């Protein structure tokens, strides 16, 4: 925050409004990379059939969708400040990002409409791979589209950002990436613990006389269900 507000110089064109860039762009990059990584995790799940990879893929998508909503909201505020409009429908960058977020919003009904856990994990992984492949294709298509409305900060013919802005941007990107990883870890840990508690309740509620010899209550199974 100190770097953003007191170190990075004011943008010659946009002035103080450009400070939104340091939260908006890193969130967009991390969200999009998160979607692609979720696709890779989905592919690993299909290859190994280990449900842990499906849950990692799900959590990566979940946090990326939250970041995506943040990108849309901060982008709308930036648009209102710069262009006087909350949204511009003929701008490919904005519309394509909205499409990506809406596409991933359909992941939840798809996932939770299937009751069989194995089938649900398989379908969710296929979705994650397909949508994950769509993200870079979509990004490339937007880059190729000729539009002068949305600012192209990186790799512009005029030389791009000065060093102080780059440093501030990289620190912001690192911070947002660490935040993303922390939230993913927190979510996975919460799911894992919930699964273990459910399993423990099942073990405690079964009659000791029924079935195989009672499992010691202090031993929690190593591979619990995440449901």
């Amino acid at each position, binding site marked *: 925050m100190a770097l953003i*507000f*007191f170190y990075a110089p*004011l943008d010659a064109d946009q*002035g*103080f*409004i450009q*400070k*939104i860039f340091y*939260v*908006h762009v890193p*969130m967009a990059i991390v969200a999009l990379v998160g979607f692609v990584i979720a696709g890779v995790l989905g592919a690993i799940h299909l290859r190994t059939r280990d449900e842990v990879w499906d849950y990692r893929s799900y959590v990566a998508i979940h946090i990326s969708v*939250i970041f995506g*909503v*943040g990108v849309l*909201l*901060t982008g709308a*505020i*930036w648009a*209102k*400040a710069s262009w006087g409009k909350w949204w511009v429908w003929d701008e490919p960058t904005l519309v394509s990002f909205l499409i990506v977020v809406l596409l991933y919003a359909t992941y939840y009904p798809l996932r939770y409409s299937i009751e069989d856990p194995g089938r649900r994990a398989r379908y969710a992984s296929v979705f994650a791979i397909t949508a994950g492949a769509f993200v870079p294709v979509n990004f490339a298509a937007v880059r190729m589209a000729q539009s002068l409305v949305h600012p192209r900060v990186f790799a512009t013919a005029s030389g791009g950002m000065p060093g102080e802005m780059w440093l501030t941007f990289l620190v912001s990107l690192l911070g947002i990436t660490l*935040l993303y990883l922390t*939230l993913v870890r*927190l*979510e996975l840990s*919460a799911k894992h*613990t*919930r699964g273990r*508690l459910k399993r*423990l*309740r099942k073990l*405690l*509620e079964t009659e*000791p006389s029924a079935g195989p010899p009672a499992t010691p*209550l*202090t031993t929690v199974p190593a591979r619990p269900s995440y449901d």
Partner: protein
Amino acid sequence: MTSALLAAAPALPLHEAGKYVAAAYGVFVTLILIYVAIIAARLQRMEKEIDSLTELAERRLGPDAGRHEDR
């Protein structure tokens, strides 16, 4: 001390653009806070579940089972 730091810091042009920049960062912080609140609520539910499981385990094994681990 805070006022001395603020006095030493360079002035920010908070007139026109300030409210938009504040709103954007406010959205970011709010999203994170909502998420943390949801996680805290879940943790609370899990804590209740652990209490209930502890009670169940004590009923099955007797109240003294595992008591030495509390220390």
